[in-house]
C-alpha cells in the first residue's frame, strides 16, 4: 500500500518534470521551425544556438507583475489558469509510454494510473479543459476576452463530438477502453508486414481525430479563441505574468498530450515490433519502447508545428460548418461502416 503510493508519487513527479522540460524544448523548437518556415534565423542569442532563450522567457514571466483588471472577478480570474494547467497535466496520467520495467526488483508499469477506462478518462478531462478558457474569458470583464471564451466553448463542444465518435471506431477494433490493450493490439503485423496500426485500419477516424485534436488544443488553423488580429489576445488578453505563463504552459502541454494520444491510439503507441529480432528483453526492451514512443510523439509534434506555420486561420463560421457539417458526418459514417464490417466478419 505504502510502497504503491511512493512509486505513484515518484512517477507523478518524474512526469511533471519531464513535461515541463519538454514544454521549454517545444517552445524553442516552435520558434526555430517558424523561423525556418519564414526564412529568418529565430532565437540565437541566449545560449548556444539560442537554446536558453525559452528558459530566459520563463524567468521573465516569473518576474513580471501580475495585473488583475479592476472589475475582474478575482477568485475566478485566479482559478481559470489553474484549471487549464491542472487538466492539461493530469491527462498524461493514463498514457502508457512503455510496457513494464523492472527497477529495484519490482515490476513497474510505465504509466501513472492504469485505469480500465483510460479513453473515457481522457475524454472526461478534455471536456473539462474548456472551463479554464471560458472562465478566463468571462472573469476578465473584457469584451475581447469574453468573445474568445465564447468562441472557445463553442469550438470545443463542436469538435469534442467528432473526436469522441472517431475514438469509438478505434474502440470497436481494439475491443477495449484500456490504452495499454489498444497499444497491445497494434503491436501485431498485418498481411505483408505492415504494423497493425490503427492509422491503417481506421484512416478516416485518424483524419477526423487529428483535425479534432487541433481544434481541441486551439492550435492553428483553429486558434480562434485567441486570434490576435480580431481579439487582441483572446481569452488571455487580461492576463500577465505567471498566470499568463500558466496558460502558455497548458497550451503546450496540451499539444504534447494530444500528440501522445494520437500516437497511442493510431500510431502503434510504444509498441516496438522488432524486439525479438534485436534480442531485446526486459529493461532494454522497455527502453526501446520508450524511445519509440518519444520519437513518434516528437514527429507528430513537429507535424503540428509545421501546420501552424503553413496554414492560414479559418473564419469562425467556416470552423463551425467544418465541425458540424463535415467532420461529424464523416466520423459517424466511419463508425457505421466499421461496425457493419465487424458485424459481418463476426457473422461469417
Amino acid at each position: 500500500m505504502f510502497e504503491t503510493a511512493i512509486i505513484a508519487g515518484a512517477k507523478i513527479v518524474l512526469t511533471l518534470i519531464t513535461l515541463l522540460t519538454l514544454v521549454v524544448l517545444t517552445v524553442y523548437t516552435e520558434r526555430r521551425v517558424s523561423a525556418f518556415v519564414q526564412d529568418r534565423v529565430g532565437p540565437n542569442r541566449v545560449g548556444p544556438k539560442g537554446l536558453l532563450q525559452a528558459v530566459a522567457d520563463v524567468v521573465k514571466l516569473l518576474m513580471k507583475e501580475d495585473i488583475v483588471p479592476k472589475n475582474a472577478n478575482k477568485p475566478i480570474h485566479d482559478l481559470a489558469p489553474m484549471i487549464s494547467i491542472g487538466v492539461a497535466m493530469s491527462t498524461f496520467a493514463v498514457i502508457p509510454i512503455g510496457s513494464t520495467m523492472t527497477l529495484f526488483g519490482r515490476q513497474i508499469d510505465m504509466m501513472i494510473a492504469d485505469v480500465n477506462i483510460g479513453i473515457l478518462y481522457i475524454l472526461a478531462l478534455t471536456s473539462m479543459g474548456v472551463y479554464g478558457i471560458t472562465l478566463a474569458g468571462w472573469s476578465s470583464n473584457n469584451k475581447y476576452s469574453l468573445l474568445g471564451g465564447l468562441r472557445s466553448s463553442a469550438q470545443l463542444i463542436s469538435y469534442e463530438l467528432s473526436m469522441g465518435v472517431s475514438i469509438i471506431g478505434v474502440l470497436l477494433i481494439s475491443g477495449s477502453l484500456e490504452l495499454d490493450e489498444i497499444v497491445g493490439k497494434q503491436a501485431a503485423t498485418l498481411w505483408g508486414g505492415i504494423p497493425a496500426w490503427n492509422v491503417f485500419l481506421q484512416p478516416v477516424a485518424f483524419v477526423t481525430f487529428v483535425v479534432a485534436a487541433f481544434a481541441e488544443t486551439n492550435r492553428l488553423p483553429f486558434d480562434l479563441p485567441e486570434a490576435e488580429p480580431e481579439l487582441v489576445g483572446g481569452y488571455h488578453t487580461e492576463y500577465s505574468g505567471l498566470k499568463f505563463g500558466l496558460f502558455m504552459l497548458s497550451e503546450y502541454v496540451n499539444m504534447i498530450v494530444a500528440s501522445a494520444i494520437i500516437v497511442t491510439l493510431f500510431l502503434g503507441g510504444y509498441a516496438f515490433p522488432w524486439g525479438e529480432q534485436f534480442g531485446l528483453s526486459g529493461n532494454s526492451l522497455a527502453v526501446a519502447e520508450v524511445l519509440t514512443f518519444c520519437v513518434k510523439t516528437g514527429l507528430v509534434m513537429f507535424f503540428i508545428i509545421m501546420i501552424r506555420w503553413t496554414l492560414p486561420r479559418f473564419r469562425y463560421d467556416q470552423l463551425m460548418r467544418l465541425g458540424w457539417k463535415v467532420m461529424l458526418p464523416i466520423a459517424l459514417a466511419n463508425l457505421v461502416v466499421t461496425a457493419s464490417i465487424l458485424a459481418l466478419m463476426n457473422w461469417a
Partner: protein
Amino acid sequence: MVNIEVVLFVVLAVLFVGSGIMVITRRSPVLAVLYLILNFFALAGLYLTLQAQFIAVIQIIVYAGAIMVLFLFVIMLLNLKDEEKLIEKITARKVLAVGLSAAVMFEILYIIWISTPGIERDVAKAEELGRVEAIGKALFSDFLFPFEVTSVVLIVAIVGAVILAKKKLD
C-alpha cells in the same frame, strides 16, 4: 480504524450537499454553474465509491463537461447580471411551503432510516456490473427497447428546441 470508504463517503456527501446549497443561494449565475460542476464531481465520486466507474465518468463527460459548458455559454452570451430579489417579504404562503417541504423531507428521511434495503450489498457483483462491458450488454439485450426509444425522445427534444428557438421558421 475508521473505514476508508466511510471517510470517502462523508467527505463526498458533505461536498455534494454543500455545493448543492451553494448553487441555489448564489446570486451570480456563473458562480452557481461553477458550484453545480463541483456538485457533479462530488456525485461522480459517490458513484465511484459504489463501483460504478462507467456512470461516474459519463457523469463528468456529459454533465460536467458538455451540459454545463452549454449553460455557461448561454449565461455568458446573455451577459446575465446578478439576480435581484423581487420580493423580500416573508409571506404566510412561503412559511407554509417551507414547513410542508421540511415535513416531507423528514418523513422521507425517517422512512429511509427505518426501512431495510431490498437488495443485498455485494461489492464483487457491483464491480462486475459497473464495468463498461456489463452496461453495454445490458443496454443491448435486456434494455434494448428502452435504449432505442430514448433516441426517439432525444430527436423530439432536438426538433422541439429548434422549433421554439429558431429565429425564423420559413
